[in-house]
């Protein structure tokens, strides 16, 4: 072998691994045990599917993922995040379903100059004044769905709406977000016990108030209880039901006929027609045998977002360059279109969805865009300009 060829092959080998030592480490925290595992496990599945689709290398670099189970507890999440940042020295902490858990780790992670990526939680507390240049949310700001519903119901000329939510912070926020864009009259505003089982008394009071529509935020089992009892009281045919975060891929199988004809809002849907989404939904169905819910879609998007930004920045060592690449928000997303607001929260479309029963299956179908390129209400309080 001549010296020239030898030299060339060495040069080529070096070009293939420009910085041989560079590696990406991501800590992915979600809820894998307990009842809420039904949200966290699909997220982990979708995250793994995303990695599979990009060949297991984020931005073409050697990739190590460390999974953590937060058990839905803020203190556990904080311990996990601290360990990932200090001991494992990760470049990104991602995942996080619950707003209270995100708030617990937001300070420690961003102060340590590690990027924090929320794949679901979007509390207002970190969207306004306390926004951070090291925190990105690739999911949604919590108020976006109720705002979308308020906008839609106003545009349909629906007046005199009865609103109901559990008596805790998120419940209050969901009503506040709704009222921000709903211009009609409120027929009644009721806060129920968290985890309530029987809603018959509330339903009687609701009927007596004679509203023209009902708006609820009752996530998980509460939604199943309410929607079933609402239908049994014969109200679903008389007073149309609109909901946020209540009728979804996880609760619909337990509601079935009772939920058919109710409306919801979402920033993503399995039937959105774009290449990335088709690849994701088909791949997910094939690998896990189920239609993914939006939690899973966001976890998949987290992979696409990291992969694209790292590739564009040419690695993870230059944090300023990486941040600029992340801010561009031009990754191939299951949502079709996506942009970051100045507070690093998404600007995205909000869709109306209707629960339907067709061909023996119950699912939600996209009925159109309610708000296009919608940004959250807190971005204006965030001091970041870029």
């Amino acid at each position, binding site marked *: 072998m001549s010296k020239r060829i030898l030299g060339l092959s060495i040069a080529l080998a070096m070009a293939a691994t420009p910085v041989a030592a560079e590696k990406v480490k991501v800590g992915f925290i979600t809820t894998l045990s307990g009842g809420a595992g039904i949200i966290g496990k699909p997220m982990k599945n979708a995250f793994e599917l995303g990695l599979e689709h990009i060949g297991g290398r984020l931005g073409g670099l050697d990739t190590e993922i460390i999974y953590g189970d937060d058990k839905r507890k803020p203190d556990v999440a904080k311990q996990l995040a601290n360990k990932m940042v200090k001991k494992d020295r990760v470049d990104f902490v991602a995942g996080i379903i619950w707003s209270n858990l995100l708030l617990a780790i937001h300070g420690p992670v961003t102060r340590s100059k590690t990027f924090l990526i929320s794949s679901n939680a979007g509390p207002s507390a970190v969207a306004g004044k306390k926004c951070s240049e090291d925190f990105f949310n690739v999911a949604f700001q919590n108020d976006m769905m109720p705002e979308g519903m308020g906008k839609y119901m106003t545009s349909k000329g629906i007046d005199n709406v009865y609103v109901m939510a559990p008596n805790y912070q998120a419940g209050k926020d969901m009503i506040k977000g709704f009222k921000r864009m709903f211009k009609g009259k409120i027929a009644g505003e009721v*806060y129920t016990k968290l985890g309530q089982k029987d809603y018959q008394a509330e339903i009687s009071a609701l009927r007596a108030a004679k509203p023209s529509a009902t708006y609820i935020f009752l996530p998980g089992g509460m939604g199943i209880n309410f929607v079933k009892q609402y239908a049994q009281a014969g109200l679903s045919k008389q007073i149309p039901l609109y909901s946020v975060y209540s009728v979804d891929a996880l609760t619909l199988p337990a509601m079935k006929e009772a939920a058919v004809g109710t409306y919801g809002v979402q920033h993503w849907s399995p039937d959105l027609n774009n290449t990335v989404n088709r690849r994701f939904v088909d791949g997910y169905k094939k690998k896990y045998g189920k239609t993914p819910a939006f939690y899973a879609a966001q976890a998949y998007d987290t992979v696409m977002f990291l992969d694209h930004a790292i590739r564009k920045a040419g690695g993870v060592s230059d944090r300023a360059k990486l941040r600029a690449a992340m801010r561009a928000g031009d990754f191939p997303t299951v949502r079709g279109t996506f942009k970051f607001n100045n507070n690093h929260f998404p600007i995205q479309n909000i869709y109306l969805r209707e629960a339907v029963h067709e061909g023996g299956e119950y699912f939600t179908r996209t009925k159109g865009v309610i708000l296009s390129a919608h940004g959250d209400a807190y971005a204006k309080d965030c001091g970041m300009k870029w």
Partner: protein
Amino acid sequence: MDPLLLLEQTFNGFQFGIMLFLIAAGLTLVFGIMDMVNLAHGSLVMVGAYLATTFIEWTGSFIGGLALAIPATFAIGVLVEIVALRTLYRRNHLDQVLATFGLILFFNEIVRIVWGPISLYSGLPDYLSGQVEFIPGAPYPVYRLIIIAVGLAVAAGIYLIVAKTRLGMLIRAGASNNEMVGALGINIKSLFTFVFALGAVFAGLAGMMLGPLTSVEPGMGEPWLIQAFVVIIIGGIGSIRGAFIAAILIGMVDTLGRVLLPEFLRVFVAEAAADTAGPALASMLIYILMAAILVVRPQGLFPARNG
């Protein structure tokens, strides 16, 4: 408030009370007669709901499903008593609390393994999903009337068994002095097994009735358990009559409190404050009531062991 709505809400409270009675009946029998604190009673509610949901799907018939689920819950009650509880009667209450808490974890996990973590669908046949309008302007779900009928039938049934039959006599005798009953040649062990399984059936029946109303999911029985304990403490431990009256009382207070308190508070404080404090205060009402009753009658309204 409109008097007709108030009437309807009172009726809602009554129906809620009947549901509570179904759950509390078994709890008070076991606590009163066997002196056994059974925290896993809520798990039996869950097991009943899951079994009924599964059997209804298998048989394709609501009645058929319940007809299978009731003996199955009885069998599970017998099994739990023989395997787990029998060794606990002579232990103190703290040991019993610990062991039956373990049973809660066991049942929740086994349900998760067998049926999965996602809520099951449990619906109603068409002939039960209608409404009747016996209060003008307020069509009431037929199914909830059936719950009331079942609850009243169970109450009457228990009363007849305990007061009028030989079995009931043995139960009462076993409660006041079980060693003496054993010395007289009665098999007290199998009597206790039977009583526990009977309690399991009542809890299971409550779960079966709840299935079509609420989400059938792991841990669905626990929120009811706390209220059931309040019922038996107010009613007097071991007293079926006490459990019935206390359940209706709790049902009324909880329901009317939930509905009226926020409106009542709005008269005095700002709307936003009333919206927050109202529901919070309403959910405390039954515990405040319990505390008040315990101050006046520490033994409960209908003292145990002779009710």
